[in-house]
């Protein structure tokens, strides 16, 4: 289980993140919301050890993150960055197979996992194509398949961190991808996902963390976090909150 206690991150003399106490529980999807510059990506970078924390600590299974040997950590923790700079003509299969590098599960099993992960990200039909020939949204799905393959099939004790995995996707794929992430969590993994779309967050996340200028404004189930007052305070956005007629989760409508 990935846990952050009393996290504080400074850049120069400026505090960009403070008072963060979260834990990513098995089987749960935690959504992180907040305006641009609220510290969402900083939080993700601190949680995966990319950014040193000024105070507080991040631990994976009760052991400080920095103490984990690289490969062992990579089998428990996978990270999807906001964008990728891959500029070489790997095939889609090869890109996703890189997710299997920390494992020694053999070529046959890896091949099966690559196909299953691609299928989960609705990208199996791209398998033989060159990565460079794909559109932005297709590339995003391929990278999601890569991090899914890194933890496949997903089990308790594994953690997946996703930075805006739906930013370039069409409306249908925003739902299929987040449903795939949900399914992944239901097999036992813990997931943290940064999102901008409040309605997607309301529908697919179990817990939400609403950040404002590096501080947690609210942390809890969607129905408690997504209130008209909170959204007005954090985003300066006037909204109406309804209930989804079929699913019951909050439905956010801008006024």
């Amino acid at each position, binding site marked *: 289980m990935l846990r952050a206690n009393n996290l504080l991150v400074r850049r120069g003399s400026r505090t960009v993140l403070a008072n963060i106490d979260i834990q990513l529980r098995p089987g749960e999807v935690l959504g992180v919301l907040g305006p641009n510059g609220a510290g969402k990506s900083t939080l993700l970078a601190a949680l*995966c050890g*990319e950014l040193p924390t000024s105070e507080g600590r991040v631990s994976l299974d009760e052991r400080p993150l920095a103490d984990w*040997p*690289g*490969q*062992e*950590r*990579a*089998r428990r*923790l*996978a*990270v999807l*960055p906001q964008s*990728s*700079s*891959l*500029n*070489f*003509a*790997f*095939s889609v299969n*090869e*890109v996703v197979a*890189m*997710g299997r*590098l*920390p494992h020694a599960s053999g070529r046959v099993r890896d091949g099966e996992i690559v196909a299953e992960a691609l299928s989960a990200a609705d990208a199996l039909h791209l398998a033989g194509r*060159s990565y*460079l*020939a794909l559109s932005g949204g297709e590339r995003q799905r391929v990278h999601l398949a890569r991090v899914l393959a*890194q933890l496949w099939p997903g089990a308790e004790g594994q953690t997946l961190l996703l930075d805006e995995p739906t930013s370039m996707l069409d409306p249908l794929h925003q739902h299929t991808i987040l449903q795939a992430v949900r399914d992944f969590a239901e097999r036992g993994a813990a997931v943290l996902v940064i999102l901008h779309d409040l309605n997607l967050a309301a529908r697919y996340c179990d817990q939400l963390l609403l950040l404002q200028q590096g501080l947690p404004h609210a942390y809890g189930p969607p129905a408690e976090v997504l209130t008209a007052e909170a959204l007005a305070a954090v985003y300066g956005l006037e909204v109406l909150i309804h209930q989804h007629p079929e699913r019951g989760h909050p439905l956010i409508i801008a006024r």
Partner: protein
Amino acid sequence: MTAIFRPRPTLIGLLLLLVLVFWLSLALGPVSLPLGDTLLAGMRLLGLPLDGGDTQQAELILGQIRLPRSLLGIAVGSVLALSGVAMQGLFRNPLADPGLVGVSGGAALGAALAIVGGSLLGGVPPAVEPYLLSVSAFAGGLIVTAVVYRFGRRNGQTDVATLLLAGVAMTAMAGAGVGLFTYLADDATLRTLTFWNLGSLNGASYPRLWPLLIVTVGVALWLPRRAAALNAMLLGESEARHLGFDIERIKLELVLCTALGVGAAVAAAGLIGFIGLVVPHLMRLLVGPDHRVLLPASLLAGASLLLLADLAARLLLAPAELPIGIVTALIGAPFFLYLLVRGRS
């Protein structure tokens, strides 16, 4: 644009090409040796007591001149190509050149120091001269690369963008040093310096060959162990870290392999451009970007291409000889431009 050929047959094809080019480079020259004589003399040099014609002359030419020269060509070509793969992986740019971290510039400065400095001090004993040149060039390459690497380090991490810029700056400084020595040199020294800067396999000898051969074998054994890490690096440094690789260590190893490999190659044969840039690029078109195939393919193709360039250098104006750097630049530069144009369309 993934691999257009299957990896294994391509590697076998490249190996056969190298064998063919190796034989041509042994057989052709001012004195052409028939295939039979080359084979027979080669066998006898290996100590096989074979009957047949008189191959004494062939044995002499082969053993003393052509064999060390061809082996030098193989070593220089393969280590330059491997270093090119390492640098293109490090900078995640298919157009990176092994000279980017300053090793070529530094080696040129070391060589200029040895050539001109030696003559200014009233000459060094002829027995020491070739070694002094090689050692000085090798040391120059290592020292300048170490300085560049030092500039790229910050907070325990290596920033490759800073590394690149520091490499450009240090190469310029080394160039200024070479310019200064050129200015100070007398006519005879100037000629030596110029020829050295153009590169040549001429005058290859076993004492010059061994150090380079050892470095080449070391690099050729080490880099493939890092093939998976190099693949992951192409995704991005943080992605590779999240896949469990110790990226800072890998970056150091890549810079070290390049400094040793290019330094030793330049020390043995002077500045030979474009092999390290063009060969990995060409092989990526043939076998794709997977380093598990790309590294051996580049090794084989680099060796073949350098031997071919050397054949052209010594046959085009025979009995006179062109510096090989001119040939590789003449072939490499237009090809590079072609790749640029092709990449744009």
